[in-house]
């Protein structure tokens, strides 16, 4: 860490990417962004990371986001309402007011 061609560029990168990972996870798009430090001398590691990540994304399946080029409604229906009720506790209890704005 810190051993970046652009001085502390990789400090900024890891913070930004971590931020994005967390945000995308919050919206239900987890696991689709990955960061690794690989130097030009680490061909093996590069291959490993790319292979692993490819496998992971393959396991996650195709991009769940709708494309709006043709039929908007059909596209949306592919994502809305999916996975409902499959998770225990999927309807969180109505929060008490005090809890909302502590």
């Amino acid at each position, binding site marked *: *860490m*810190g051993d970046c061609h652009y*001085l*502390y560029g990789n*400090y*900024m990168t*890891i*913070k*930004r*990417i*971590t*931020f*994005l*990972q*967390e*945000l995308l*996870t*919050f*919206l*239900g*798009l*987890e*696991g689709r962004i*990955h*960061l*690794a*430090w690989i130097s030009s001398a680490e061909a093996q590691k590069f291959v490993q*990371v790319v292979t*692993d*990540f490819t*496998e*992971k994304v393959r*396991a996650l399946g195709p991009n*769940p*986001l*709708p494309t*709006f080029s043709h039929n908007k409604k059909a596209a*949306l229906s592919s*994502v*809305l*309402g*999916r*996975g*409902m009720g*499959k*998770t225990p*506790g*999927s*309807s*969180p*209890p*109505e*929060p008490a*007011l*005090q*809890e*909302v*704005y*502590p």
Partner: protein
Amino acid sequence: MQDTVKAWLENGTIDVFLGYKKVDNHPLPHCFTKARLEELEDLVVSPDRYPLEKIATHMTTAKPEVKIGMLARDCTQRALNVLYIWNQLDPEKIQTLNVNCCPSPLKEKADCSYLRPATVGDYKKEKGVNNAALLEQLSEYGQEERLGRWMYEFQKCIKCYGCRNICPVCFCKECSLEHEDLIKTGALPPEIPVFHLIRAVHMAGRCIDCGLCEEACPMDIPLRLLYRKVNDIVAQVFDYKTGTSASQSPFNILGDSVTLEPKPIQLTGTDS
């Protein structure tokens, strides 16, 4: 209150004062000046809110030397801190007249007392995201459901730009949300979730949780919740609490050394 403002205007502490003027019993944002001191009789603390800070930013852009006074609630103070850090306002030129947050049944514990808890209909409860939910509660949903619920909220968007227009900490001359490359014109809903993600990312280190965006949103999208998450992450990752200080910028911290490590790839399950 009237006396203080009057004194400030008279002795030149400030050139203008941003507050609320009672017009036909409606408090409306108003710029009080020395020339018309008599208007101060109608100066009130409003239970309704307008982003006075944003008006100040616009004024400063047009006339950088103007000294501005304004009524300030907690959220105003936080917004001002952010605007100082982002070099949009000069703390030397701003005087605040601090007022309590407006009366509310939640006053005791409220960080913004005005917002009444959102009333959420059954359909939204079933399909969307409860505006009043806690951040942790959303993680109880599975990945697909989380995405589906948010996409339900986003697809309601009518691209009115109300959230941006009311936002006290939005100040760009040209908004990314109007860039043809990112958001195609003439389509509704706009490209989702990109539209809302762009705004969410732009709120990192800026959103001061005033809730005006959500209030302004005609479609009831839980924007405040989304941006709360954004700054929750900023607090964790950058160790930066947005709006709490006028001295520390998130960008000074960005390049500081970190103990974070890239997350390992988890081949099974999800890495949240």
